[in-house]
């Protein structure tokens, strides 16, 4: 999962948007083909919050760079389907032990070979408890992993320079799918002499590489050029990338309009209403692998057992998702019809029980009244959120929708910072329902379900537990066939639709745009443009 930076809370101003509307000529559609192979693409990003070490990067700013300068065993195409990158083959018989064969003769930009050791050493480092790597949880399914003590990842074994095996603690059919995530990237041998220095000036094996020492100008930008050694599918169609670090999305958007930026992958809230007319067909607005919801922990009064289930359903049916996504978000969100995302293979809006996600005030009132018959409702219904993330608008809209439908007292409960809200949630000290969101780490349905709703799972903030659900997940995980696995996951989702541990709200869209000079701009499943495909005149 990658964090989006909490943008500067500079207010959205209608006047500015109105000016932008008239300030930009409509795009001409003459682009396409015939790009300049040496042209540098400028794209927005944010200052990486950590040194560029794959296992210690969990936010978008660093992630974009790592994805460009490293190549993992697999990569994801625009649809989220995995293809071999460094791997020649990944095979398994039991979904527990995987054998990885690496393409021979690959090299890092510093000349070190890309071999089995370069993966195994990097993963072992990332998993070691005392290294406290932010992405260490990616290795938790590998044999020998421990959060509490420094233990060897015994599940990793180097067979020969181009072959190694991975042994998991339990069967996971979608494990190869995860291997495209940056935490699983290899590191060259020379990195280990001074990892901090390496993080400042990394040598990778991806389609791009840093444009020399000091290419990373902190807080300003990082310059990448094409790596001539790279032989994989993601061959760059341009001359390089320049990621400009923006402090606010507004500034980046202004630069896109001003012609200083080629590709923008995040439209500021203030331009939601106007960016499609500002940019014409250069505007991008498509669903992303981001699921948003609010969580109602079972421990809260009135929300457990039969009464709780009725109330959860009543709340879900009292929210007019369609109206809120079009009015508050200007169509940059898509109403949710399950717990995953439309960009993930296997997604469907035809789940049994999905009608609980449709606006149905009469049914909502009825269910709420039934719950009141079990135990009368008292107090105020609240949704907690962090005030520094631009959530107030929709929380208020959701609250209003609930208030008007159910006729109960309801309010948003803002916490000043993400930090504060998140701490209360993690420590289970929060006493109200709260906003939750999930961006997938890898394009699989399981990633939206396992970490969030499995009993005792890491991000199960509402402490949901249902053995039937757990069993279905486990069954799906052992199915080698993706379609069969997904069928099990969908059944699991149908249980969630019954239990509603969280109230699904909508899928975030990726909103972006690009300048007149570039073409072939395509956004990947993880909302990040496929930079290597972009061509520039």
């Amino acid at each position: 999962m990658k964090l989006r930076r909490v943008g500067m809370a500079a207010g959205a101003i209608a006047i500015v948007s109105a000016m932008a509307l008239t300030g930009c000529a409509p795009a001409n559609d003459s682009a396409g083909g015939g790009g300049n192979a040496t042209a540098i693409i400028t794209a927005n990003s944010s200052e990486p919050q950590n040194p560029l070490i794959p296992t210690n990067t969990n936010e978008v700013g660093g992630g974009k760079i790592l994805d460009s300068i490293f190549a993992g065993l697999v990569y994801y195409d625009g649809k989220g389907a995995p293809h071999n990158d460094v791997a020649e083959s990944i095979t398994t018989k039991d979904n527990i032990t995987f054998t990885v064969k690496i393409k021979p003769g690959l090299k890092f930009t510093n000349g070190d070979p890309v071999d089995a050791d370069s993966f195994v050493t990097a993963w072992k480092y990332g998993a070691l408890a005392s290294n406290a790597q932010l992405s260490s949880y990616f290795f938790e399914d590998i044999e020998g992993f421990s959060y509490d003590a420094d233990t060897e990842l015994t599940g990793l074994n180097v067979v020969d320079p181009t072959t190694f095996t991975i042994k998991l603690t339990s069967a996971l059919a979608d494990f190869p799918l995860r291997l495209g995530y940056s935490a699983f990237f290899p590191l060259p041998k020379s990195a280990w002499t001074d990892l901090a220095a390496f993080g400042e000036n990394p040598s990778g094996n991806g389609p791009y590489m840093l444009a020399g020492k000091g290419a990373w100008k902190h807080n300003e930008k990082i310059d990448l050029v094409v790596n001539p050694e790279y032989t994989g599918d993601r061959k760059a169609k341009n001359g390089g990338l320049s990621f400009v670090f923006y402090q606010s999305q507004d500034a980046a958007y202004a630069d896109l309009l001003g012609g200083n930026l080629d590709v923008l992958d995040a439209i500021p809230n203030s331009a939601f209403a106007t960016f499609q007319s500002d940019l014409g067909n250069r505007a991008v607005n498509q669903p992303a692998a981001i699921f948003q919801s609010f969580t109602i922990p079972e421990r809260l009064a009135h929300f457990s057992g039969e009464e709780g289930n009725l109330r959860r359903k009543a709340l879900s049916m009292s929210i007019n998702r369609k109206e809120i996504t079009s009015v508050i978000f200007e169509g940059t969100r898509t109403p949710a019809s399950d717990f995953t995302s439309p960009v993930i293979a296997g997604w469907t809006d035809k789940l049994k029980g999905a009608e609980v996600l449709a606006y149905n005030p009469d049914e909502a009132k009825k269910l709420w009244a039934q719950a009141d018959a079990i135990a009368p409702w008292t107090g105020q219904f609240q949704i907690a959120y962090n005030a520094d993330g631009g959530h107030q608008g929709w929380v208020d809209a959701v609250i209003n929708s609930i208030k008007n439908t159910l006729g109960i007292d309801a309010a948003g409960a803002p916490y000043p910072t993400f930090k504060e809200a998140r701490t209360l949630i993690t420590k289970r000290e929060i006493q109200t329902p709260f906003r939750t969101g999930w961006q997938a780490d890898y394009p699989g349905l399981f990633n939206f379900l396992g970490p969030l709703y499995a009993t005792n799972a890491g991000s199960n903030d509402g402490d949901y537990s249902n053995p039937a659900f757990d069993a279905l997940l486990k069954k799906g995980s052992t199915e080698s066939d993706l379609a069969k696995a997904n069928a099990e996951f969908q059944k699991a989702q149908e249980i969630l639709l019954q239990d509603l541990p969280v109230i699904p709200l909508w899928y975030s869209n990726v909103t972006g745009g690009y300048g007149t000079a570039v073409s072939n701009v395509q956004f990947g499943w993880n909302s990040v443009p496929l930079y290597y495909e972009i061509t520039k005149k």
Partner: protein
Amino acid sequence: MTLYILRRVLQAVPVFFGTTLLIYFMVFVMPGDPIIALFGDKSPNPAVIEQLRAQYHLDQPFFVQYFLYIGGLFRGDFGVSFSGEAINSILQRTFPVTARLAVLALGFLTVAGILVGLVSGLRKGKFFDNSSLGVSLVLISLPIFVTAFVAQYVFGVWLGWSRTTVGSGAPVQDLILPAIVLATASFAQVMRLTRSSTLETMNQDFVRTAYSKGLSRRRVIPVHILRNSLIPSVTYLATDFGVLLVGATITEGIFNVPGVGNTLYQAIIRGEGPTVVSFVTVMVLLYLGVNLLIDLLYGLLDPRIRYVK
């Protein structure tokens, strides 16, 4: 004079300790755990959290944390930010940029505010005076981010006279527009102060004396009127330096200036004690320095308040 400067510098010592302690404490008691927030919406494993807390001394009691930090300071080490970068190098990277922006803004503010104020005062009630008062009224009532956005769209997107945001290395030509925007926030005050003190000075006896000596307007205005009118404006500029630093946070965000403002803002949001305290401390010291400078300048402008040797 040297003694006076020395004393002022010594006065900065308790201010330094007071500020660092206070700010460190404020960051300390800020609700929320910065480590948990590092993981975003994902709930990290408690063991990982403990590991990281120990790494940043967050598991220690307040005073231990504080003294560890102060101890580092005396070795010239401001500590390390969550991103693993030495705070020293963050300071070295960001302060020159913001200083350039603030000095540029202060320059625009001084020149424009004083010039317009002077001319307005000299032409009280005339067209120039009325229109500049009107403009200043508009500027004073606009929040800085409105001015910034409008300027960015008009000069950056529409007219293309300036880059929409500040380019790499924050070159001076890119900083001109943000600096002007930053200056507009205080322009009205400086202009009005200068205007009213010009009006006051114009009616002073010594101005009449100057004319009675046969001096021309061209000499009387800069030599006799302006210098006496500057004193209140200069005082204001000193206090305004702090406002400029604060305003820089917003302006830097909008124009994407890689300066102090955004780094500090992010550090506060993330609860990075050492980074916040280091930045605030340097800002306070800078503020004290500028005030000392202005006090000395003050004595230069007005011999009546010059400090005895």
